[in-house]
């Protein structure tokens, strides 16, 4: 029996060594990463996030001698199309994008197009130590697309609504209430223009609430009766648009624009995917301090956002070092501070060491930020195929 055990252990260790030969060890990765320049293509529309990325750049340069350059995008799709164009041109190394902030539709496009390097996420030391993949569906299913280690989690987001308590006493906490409010106050309600991701999310949020059987949304759209399921959504929007902001002829381009409009009092309710957006904007003098956050009674949609490495990056090691640093308790806790960014951590609190747990416990909560309890139920993202179908339906009805 003992012999058998020894043989087993021996076999296991040879197996482990073979593994190591295939997967270069982390110290090798660190070594190769030294001196590399990582061009991180990340949406650059919010100053606080840009500042956080700059902080990451300073930290990884100090600690790992990796140069991190933030390439600010107006739309992540631009970076996807750039990598695609490079693939088209046969440029299989030395690509211009080394790391990309991504999820959902863009991830699906890159994964299916063979534009990604990996799998790498599950081999990152901090992923192995601190992340529990089963904790949330969105860690392994990115809008219904299996993640399979092709992207590494960075943060979590949930749809929240914002309103100014000085002008609005009882915020509408369901889609029907929102429509009633819009009818009483024409021009004060709107949502971002799909296919902007928050705009598409609003469509999914409304659909989840209005359709008879939301569980159907978890199936690929092709297997479902799209027209029948979405009919209540279009009926709702048909009613909403005539009483919406600028009569539904234009829509805000982003959450930032909505908050600007909220500050201007052009509109009464703004949306964000960033649970602490209101607190951050109040601190920067961009919103009055009477603004508060709320979620809908039936819950709101939440998801995880990731970083991925293009197949032709010239700094794959450096990019992995950055991805790993992003998963460190230090980086995740700093990120969750509302005055820094307020983005929710992807780490498993119970896997943290006590001193790191304390770090998270001590994060101050902004005046307009909801606690995890107050955020309520997180609704799952519908299967990724719904997004395109909804956007197409929206285009045909309202974009022409």
């Amino acid at each position, binding site marked *: 029996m003992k012999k058998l055990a020894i043989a087993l252990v021996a076999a296991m260790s040879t197996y482990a060594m073979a593994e190591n030969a295939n997967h270069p060890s982390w110290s090798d990765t660190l070594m190769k990463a030294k001196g590399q320049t990582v061009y991180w293509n990340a949406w650059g529309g919010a*100053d606080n996030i840009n500042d956080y990325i700059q902080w990451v750049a300073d930290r990884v340069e100090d600690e790992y001698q990796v140069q991190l350059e933030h390439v600010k995008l107006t739309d992540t799709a631009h970076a996807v199309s750039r990598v695609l164009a490079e693939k088209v041109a046969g440029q299989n190394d030395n690509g211009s994008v080394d790391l990309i902030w991504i999820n959902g539709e863009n991830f699906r496009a890159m994964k299916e197009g063979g534009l990604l390097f990996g799998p790498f996420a599950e081999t990152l030391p901090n992923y192995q130590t601190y992340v529990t993949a089963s904790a949330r569906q969105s860690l392994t299913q990115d809008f219904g697309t299996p993640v399979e280690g092709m992207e590494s989690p960075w943060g979590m987001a949930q749809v929240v609504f914002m309103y100014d308590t000085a002008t609005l006493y009882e915020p509408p906490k369901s889609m029907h209430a929102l429509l009633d409010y819009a009818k009483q106050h024409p021009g004060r309600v709107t949502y971002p223009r799909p296919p902007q991701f928050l705009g598409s999310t609003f469509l999914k949020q409304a659909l989840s609430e209005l359709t008879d059987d939301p569980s159907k949304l978890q199936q690929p759209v092709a297997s479902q009766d799209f027209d029948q399921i979405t009919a209540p959504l279009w009926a709702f929007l048909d009613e909403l648009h005539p009483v919406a902001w600028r009569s539904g002829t234009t829509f805000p381009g982003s959450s930032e624009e909505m908050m600007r409009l909220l500050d201007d009092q*052009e509109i009464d309710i703004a949306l964000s995917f960033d649970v602490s957006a209101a607190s951050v904007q109040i601190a920067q003098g961009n919103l009055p301090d009477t603004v508060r956050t709320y979620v809908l009674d039936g819950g709101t949609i939440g998801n995880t956002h990731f970083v991925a490495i293009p197949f032709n990056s010239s700094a794959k090691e450096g990019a992995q070092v950055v991805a790993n640093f992003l998963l460190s308790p230090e980086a995740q806790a700093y990120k969750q501070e509302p005055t820094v960014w307020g983005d929710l951590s992807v780490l498993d609190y119970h896997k943290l060491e006590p001193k790191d747990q304390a770090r998270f416990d001590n994060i101050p909560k902004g005046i307009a930020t909801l606690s995890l309890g107050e955020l309520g139920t997180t609704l799952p993202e519908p299967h990724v195929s719904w997004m395109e179908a909804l956007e197409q339906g929206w285009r045909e009805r309202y974009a022409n």
Partner: protein
Amino acid sequence: MAGFIGVLLLAFTPFAVGMISILLPALGWQPLTNTWVDTQHVWLELWQQPELVNALLRTLVSGVVATLLALVCAYALVAKLSQTQFGHWLGAVAAPLLSIPHSAAAIGLAFLLAPSGWLFRLVSPWLTDWQRPPNLITIQDPYTLSLILALVLKEMPYLVFVMMAIARQDKIRQLLTTSQQLGYPPLITWGKLLPTLFYRELRLPIFIVLSFNLTVVDVAQILGPDTPPTFAVLLLHWFQDPAIDRIPIASAGALLLLALVAAVSIGWELCARSLLSYLKNLTLTGSRQQPLLEWGLRFAYLLSLLLLALAFLALLVLPIWGFAQRWRFPDLWPQSWSFDTFWRIQQPLLELTANTFMLGVTSVMLALLASLLLLEVSRILTRYTSLIMILFYLPLVLPQIGFLFGIHISLIVIELHHPFWTTAYLHWLYVLPYVLLTLKGPYLAFNQNYLDEAIRLRPHPLRNYLGIKLAMLKPALFTATAIGFAVSVAQYLPTLIGGEGRLSTLTTEAVAQAVAGDRKRVGLVAMTQALLPLLAFLLAALLPRIWTPLRLRLKYPHA
């Protein structure tokens, strides 16, 4: 001669390559998979895009109306003012005015015209009773009115600049004097007689304006409608769509836009001809009164003054936002001022300014070099002068969006990974025609005898060329530099594509943040963007005057 052919190749290869790179996908080539689909299929799919018809319609309306309005307003302004002191002054400031990047002006305009904008604050709440911004569609309106306004503001100074030069010609002045002696009021002469003369020389500038207005991306993103946007913006969305299969229809769309520009230009020319022949018939009647024409010109003149005032306000509002701390509707002025935003963004602002400056200087220096070469060739081979000019005008008439995306793919094919140099090259393509045009007159008018005489006295052709000819052309060279620099600063799409997203300038940053970004930050970036070319013009006006005294003092400090 080798240099001449070299410049020619440098200037036209990108257009040829870019055009081929959109032609192939438009014929059904799917670049990702390197497969072919039916050409018919691509065009059918383009036709089925829900936004197509309305986007084209909005493009057509905004492009044509903006061109027409800019033309009429500029003409009225020149008609009223060209023979006055104010007119001379206006002619002098037209160049710096038109150097202000149009995206900066568009951003300022958005800050003015939005329901929460300055104009509405001006009348609220005391006049309108609006405690909150009204629910009005004043920007990004479906009728493209705000877009048209911005385009007119951009193009009017350019047309005024060109027309003032025409109005200074002797034959125009003589005609005005003669007809006045015959008892025709000046406005009648301007309305009936002069359009034909002007149009002959304005044709090319008008086509440039028309092509720009029909294909503009940056201004349309800031002030244009969004459901659907104008066709050029829609194309940009398609080219950048992560759903890869859009490339063929986007390419087909780019060709469609090219065809639209061509069709509109032809249609324009036909209308212009019949209108001018109508005016000619009107002239033959000999009538000295033409109230409709006169009032039309007067109205256009007032409109143009109003537009200039609006442009002034649009630029004024940028620094106000930049240095505001908190500024809510309906306050006319910020509640508090601060340098906070400035300190917060000084680092990126400095970086953006440095990038913008270096790109401008590099592309302008190269454009000056190329222009001198081209002009020297056309001085010797007089026959080819007009051919060269027309060839190098092409980049201005061709819509950017089509061939630039083609260039994007071809750049990667040749693995050119120098965002700075690629962008500087693309800027050079657009700077060159302006520099060439500015230098053409003075350079070809230069009395070559000076140089010949100097060479006889000192047999160093190159040194004499630099020390005599170029030194005498100094004012023109400085003006060309300033204009070229301004053109480079304003480039949006070439920077976006050439920089591969790694190179941001004041312009790309301002446009990216214009709609969604923090107004205080956008205000500062756009203000800096507007100041940079103005500074260049100031230097261009000052330097030639103090250059020689300064040089002499440095050379002979004790004289």
